[in-house]
């Protein structure tokens, strides 16, 4: 499953020239500040905006090819859209909304798959209501269900959470995680919220002022401090895959394993999976030359510095790989050993005389654990 986009578009004061390829399924973040052209790009894939030049392709299915004069009508593109403003049909019940696309699609989803989507979204009680009687979170769940039930080849989510408050966001996120883990459909997720990127997405396309700046796996991209000044609210950090190994409800902690490193995090309840994803912001990591004792931080990781980069302002970004063995830096490059980033002041850096290959300790002040953590 792949999505290929290479388009140019010119509109008065706005120039868009984007190119990216998403080779795998999963969620891809289309990340950038407001006005960077994210929504325009998504509308081009959906067919709602026509590019001036270029091509758009999903698998072997060419949606747009300027040179060959191909421009498929929206309804033949098999894209499912969830818009920021839900766009539910106000005069139709939730049930009618949900099946609006399914009824018009000759390639229907099998009954049991339809049912599993409806079950997952928890909307059985809302079926006969009109959209105006739903909460913001419920509306987005119905909009998500409506798009999924139309059995699209790709799902385009245009800031589906941005109109919701924090509590409602937390209510929707698990549904998106379920989608990522249980449906084999590529998802393009437009957002300017880095925490949503870290929690949900596998790939990342960074866009600013109509240009794609970088594309890559979210594990690589989030560590790139060079994107910070360009992409607005980009907040450098590290996303690490981890596994839950044990829990201690009495002590209210859970133990994780990331590579060969043990980590302690606040108690995680009873998750559906033992696979979780950790998000550590670079500014939440301190560096110590000797292992600190009598300190409140629970996670102190022996690491080796691989790279030190200047960042704009008075800070530096220190990239470190797990472990202090002699060939740690080499292993980090070749075998994908986990890396972690710290943002510290230049003053701290020169005071500690930090340099590449130096063995130090990363003190993690706080870590966000993302995963399917619903009690069900």
């Amino acid at each position, binding site marked *: 499953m792949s999505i290929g986009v290479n388009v140019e578009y010119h509109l008065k004061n706005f120039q868009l020239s984007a190119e990216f390829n998403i080779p795998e399924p999963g969620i891809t973040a289309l990340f950038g500040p407001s006005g960077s052209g994210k929504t325009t790009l998504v509308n081009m894939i*959906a067919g709602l905006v026509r590019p001036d030049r270029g091509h758009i392709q999903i698998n072997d299915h060419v949606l747009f090819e300027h040179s060959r004069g191909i421009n498929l009508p929206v309804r033949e593109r098999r894209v499912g859209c969830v818009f920021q403003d839900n*766009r539910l049909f106000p005069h139709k019940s939730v049930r009618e909304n949900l099946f609006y696309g399914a009824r*018009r699609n000759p390639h229907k989803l099998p009954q049991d798959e339809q049912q599993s989507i409806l079950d997952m979204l928890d909307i059985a009680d809302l079926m006969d209501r*009109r959209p*105006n009687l739903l909460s913001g979170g419920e509306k987005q769940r119905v909009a998500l269900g409506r798009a999924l039930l139309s059995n699209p080849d790709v799902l385009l989510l245009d800031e589906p959470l941005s109109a919701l408050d924090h509590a409602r966001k937390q209510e929707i996120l698990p549904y998106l995680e379920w989608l990522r883990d249980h449906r084999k459909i590529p998802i393009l997720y437009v957002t300017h919220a880095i925490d949503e990127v870290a929690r949900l997405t596998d790939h990342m396309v960074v866009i600013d002022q109509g240009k794609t700046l970088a594309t890559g796996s979210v594990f690589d991209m989030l560590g790139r401090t060079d994107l910070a000044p360009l992409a607005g609210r980009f907040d450098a950090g590290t996303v690490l895959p981890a596994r839950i190994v044990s829990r201690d409800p009495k002590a209210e902690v859970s133990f994780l394993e990331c590579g060969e490193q043990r980590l302690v995090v606040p108690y995680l309840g009873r998750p559906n999976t033992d696979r979780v994803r950790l998000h550590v912001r670079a500014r939440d990591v301190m560096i110590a030359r000797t292992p600190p004792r009598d300190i409140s931080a629970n996670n102190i990781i022996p690491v080796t510095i691989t790279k030190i980069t200047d960042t704009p302002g008075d800070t530096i970004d220190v990239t470190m790989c797990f472990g202090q063995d002699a060939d740690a830096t080499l292993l980090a490059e070749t075998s994908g050993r986990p890396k972690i980033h710290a943002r510290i002041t230049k003053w701290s850096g020169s005071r500690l005389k930090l340099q590449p290959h130096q063995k130090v300790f990363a003190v993690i002040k706080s870590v966000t654990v993302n995963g399917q953590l619903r009690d069900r």
Partner: protein
Amino acid sequence: MISLTPAEIEALLLSLRISGVAVACALPFAVAVATALALGRFPGRFILDAIVHLPLILPPVVMGYLLLIGFGTRAPLGAWLYETFDLRFVFSWTGAALASAIVSFPFQVRAIRLSLENVDHGLYQAAETLGAGAIDRFFSLTLPLALPGIIAGAITAFAASLGEFGAIITFVSNVPGETRTLPLAIYTAIQTPGGELAAARLAALSIGLAFTGLLLSELALHRIRKRAAS
């Protein structure tokens, strides 16, 4: 209760029938024209807009005169309709209905157009991504969402055509039982010596009708809003 003479009852029923037929026959055209004006982008849109609104500002007598020229039995169009469909407008209640329909047409178009323009364009885009074609979108979204406007337009047009005088009397004259609607009956009563009381009765009746029409229109809108909210 004021008692009406048989002739007055006849005028009342005739008025209701003519207005009813006028509105019902004009409705599909009004929806089509309003859709074209609200959603269409084509050359000559402004000219269509102007033509539709012309009856609002033209003197009704001129409207009647134009109809006479166009639909008289000796006019090409009128003659053709008469020979092919046996449809004769002059001196006939159908002619009164035609005149009423044209004069009240702008009221329908305006109300429908307004409600069409209020429909969020994003809904059409959403429907399109879900596989709905243009005609499908029109019947599944446009029409139901514009329903309040359509009903309000129909009722306003009905009330307006009940009061049409100039175009009717010019086009189809004042034939008792055929084209003498309420306003024409009032006019006739005023022209007749000793007809003041009859004129007053009929005028009161007209006021009552207009008032009922407005109430119904409000009630219909209220119902629709309540249904949309539940």
